[in-house]
């Protein structure tokens, strides 16, 4: 018999069917993040090359930082491109920020054709054929420009920051990405609070610590920063301050192609050999000091490094300074509810008066390229080989099209986050302060990109514990040593590294090292 329960069931099923049916806009092909509303199924079917691009921050339809209107810059670029190439359809997708996911998709050949990924992550896997080297295209003229414009001789010429862009070549000498825009970090500070307390931008590390002490006494959190940023930027900056003066004695390889920007940079093989010689161990006084300096600094940061929301703390004026990158300008400049004036300065150098190994040289930078567009193995999946692939030609063409000034400008400047790397495209005025910062020298090494993910994972976790008092200095140093040992062994095998040439150079540089103090003894 029909009970009220059954009638209710029918009603529920009816409601569900209505709720689950795609709305009108979705049926027309749009509705999903990045989807373009005007494409119809028939149109898509006519175009055999279906490219997928993951542009990260510029994904159409999203609203970065929840301010402003949904983005549409890339949508217009795609439409112009499709008018030129009637056999291609370009789709924009969002990808999860979880690294394991990306690796899984690359292994399966399912990743988007163009992705934005830190190219140093790419370097780890180049031997697997997952990525396409872009040098053949970069060395040739750009097809879409007129004879006198930048790019008519070489695609390389459209890029504004030449040293940084060329410096992104992998240790094997090939360039796997193009740098679309630039980012840099900076310490954003609350000008109102500083004025009230009579503080100014610090010129040296001791002054920096002193002003943080004043802020703490006044009841503010002197510096809000997430753990990931400290583990990456903080470590690299202080490391550079302590080790740069050693470069003449420890820089074992000079790479002419990357030298303009990466002079003195220590790659993974150099680090492996130096570690064998005793560097980066408990017997290396600079190494020990590095961690002590960071631990001493920690007292001025937010109590909870992992789950606190630093932007919120800064915006509600509980935190006086916020170490973040230029992407935060998008929110800070556009959020109408921010009631204070803010400015940006860069961390000050560590003088010899503070630490015997510091020499007070300008703090290096660790940013540089932000959106690094890489071409994956999906791009040549039509024939399986890059030389014969037609689809790859379309992918490269899109990438080239995107770097034209008239196309790059509306995309990059739709948000106030990054500086354009394209000649002829000017950044927003709030970002000009970062342009100055970008001209500083690059760091000595980037620890989070040197070894594999296992190293990073263990390193970051132990660093977290060390900063929060979970383990003591002795135990922490022991952990980092063991971690480095394991990572060095693994990478020697994985990359089939040959340290012999570096060993020879080490011998050659012995005289340069004779004058240096504080060097560790070999094991």
């Amino acid at each position, binding site marked *: 018999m029909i009970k009220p*329960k059954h009638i209710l*069931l029918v009603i529920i099923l009816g409601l569900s069917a209505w709720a*689950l049916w795609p709305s009108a806009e979705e049926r027309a092909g749009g*509705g999903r993040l990045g989807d373009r509303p005007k494409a119809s199924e028939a149109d898509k079917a006519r175009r055999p090359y279906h490219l997928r691009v993951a542009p990260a921050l510029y994904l159409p339809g999203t609203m970065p*930082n929840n301010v402003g209107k949904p983005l549409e810059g890339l949508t217009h670029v795609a439409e112009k491109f499709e008018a030129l190439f009637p056999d291609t359809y370009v789709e924009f997708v969002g990808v999860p920020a*979880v690294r*394991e996911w990306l690796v899984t998709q690359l292994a399966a050949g399912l990743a988007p054709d163009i992705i934005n990924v830190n190219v140093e992550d790419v370097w780890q896997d180049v031997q697997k054929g997952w990525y396409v080297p872009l040098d053949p295209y970069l060395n040739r003229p750009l097809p879409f420009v007129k004879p006198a414009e930048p790019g008519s001789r070489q695609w390389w010429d459209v890029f504004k920051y030449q040293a940084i862009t060329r410096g992104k070549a992998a240790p094997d000498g090939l360039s796997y990405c193009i740098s679309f825009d630039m980012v840099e970090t900076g310490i954003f500070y609350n000008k109102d609070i500083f004025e009230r307390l009579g503080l100014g931008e610090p010129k040296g590390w001791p002054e920096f610590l002193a002003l943080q002490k004043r802020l703490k006494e006044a009841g503010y959190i002197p510096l809000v920063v997430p753990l990931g940023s400290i583990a990456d930027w903080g470590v690299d900056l202080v490391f550079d301050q302590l080790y740069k003066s050693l470069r003449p004695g420890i820089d074992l390889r000079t790479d002419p192609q990357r030298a303009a920007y990466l002079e003195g940079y220590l790659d993974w093989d150099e680090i492996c050999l130096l570690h064998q010689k005793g560097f980066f161990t408990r017997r290396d006084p600079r190494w020990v000091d590095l961690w002590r300096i960071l631990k001493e600094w920690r007292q001025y940061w937010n109590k909870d490094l992992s789950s606190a929301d630093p932007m919120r703390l800064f915006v509600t004026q509980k935190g006086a300074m916020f170490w973040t990158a230029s992407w935060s300008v998008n929110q800070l400049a556009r959020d*109408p*509810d921010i009631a204070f004036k803010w400015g940006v300065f860069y961390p000050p150098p560590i003088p010899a008066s503070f630490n015997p190994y510091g020499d007070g040289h300008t703090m290096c930078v660790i940013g540089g390229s932000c959106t690094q567009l890489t071409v994956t193995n999906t791009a040549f999946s039509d024939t399986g080989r890059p030389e014969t692939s037609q689809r790859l030609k379309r992918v490269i063409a899109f990438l080239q099209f995107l770097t034209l000034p008239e196309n790059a400008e509306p995309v990059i400047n739709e948000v106030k986050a990054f500086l354009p790397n394209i000649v002829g495209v000017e950044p927003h005025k709030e970002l000009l302060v970062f342009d100055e910062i970008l001209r500083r020298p690059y760091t000595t090494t980037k620890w989070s990109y040197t070894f594999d993910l296992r190293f990073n994972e263990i390193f970051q976790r132990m660093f977290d514990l060390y900063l929060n008092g979970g383990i003591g200095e002795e135990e922490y140093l022991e952990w980092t040593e063991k971690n480095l040992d394991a990572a060095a062994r693994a990478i020697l095998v994985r990359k089939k590294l040959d340290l012999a040439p570096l060993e020879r150079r080490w011998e050659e540089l012995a005289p340069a090292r004779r004058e240096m103090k504080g060097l560790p003894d070999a094991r």
Partner: protein
Amino acid sequence: MTRKRRDLVLHAALIAIAFLTMVPLLFVLNNSLRTNNEMYHAFFGLPGSLVSIAKFTWYELTGQPDRIRLRADEQERGETRAADLPVQTLSYRQAMARLGDDLSRGYRYSWKVLRPYMVNTIFVCVVTAVGVVLIGSVAGYVFARHRFPGHRMLFVAILSLMMIPGVLTLVPSFLLVKQLGLLNSYGVLILPYIAGGQIFAIFLFKSFFDGLPEELFESARLDGAGHFALYWHIVLPLSKQVVAVVGVMTILGTWNNFLWPFITNADARYHVVASGLYLMGQSQVAANFSTMFAAYVLSSIPLLVLFIYATKPFMRGVTSGAFKA
């Protein structure tokens, strides 16, 4: 203690426990109706829109329509500061429309993201449950009522596969489906679940069929019924309880499975609710609290509907004593 007194004490204890259990859920429901701004400022508090609705209705009924005032819509403000937005006097109807919009905003936004996941999940769950019930009941019937060479050995082999923990086969299964080319499809979500879920189903069905009297089948067989007829007309109608238990547990398991859909799907097209919720939490949407909470509420509705209809047979199945070691 008298019975009544004892009952009162028990009720008090149980109500306290039930309340504690429901507290997070109540907060989620409450917060899904508040706007982001409200939650940014204070954790505790009723949805402002509900309070306003009550207030304005009272004003309308007591003849004070001029007190119905709201700040201009925050969504459209552009670069104006929130504190500078003008306060407007609205008609009752306009105010209700605005407040309704505010209340439902979280739900509307999250449904836009959640809807395709929901469709996928329902599809996958229903197909899996049907597959498990069909294959499980058929196999259980065959093992229970027939003797053929190797039947004991085969049954033990099947049962022993139940011992394999998911953690052991996670990585090899991924490698396997990658080789089979199933990644990024409905197949990878359905076939392994059916393969795994049927084991428990076979076990339950066999135990149930073992308990049925032989005469039932004898008479039908004498009437000339073949396997299929036996199955359709006798076996299936009798096993409603077991079907309910197996069906509900399969749907529950499939609905909640997060890891497998997450690692085997690149395309947003094939994500299910579980992995979809996690992705939402990792994306920009996570900054929008009302959207996230609304998403939690919405993702619970289908199972709620399921339980309204399946609780009685499910409880009967559990109580029937099949669950013991």
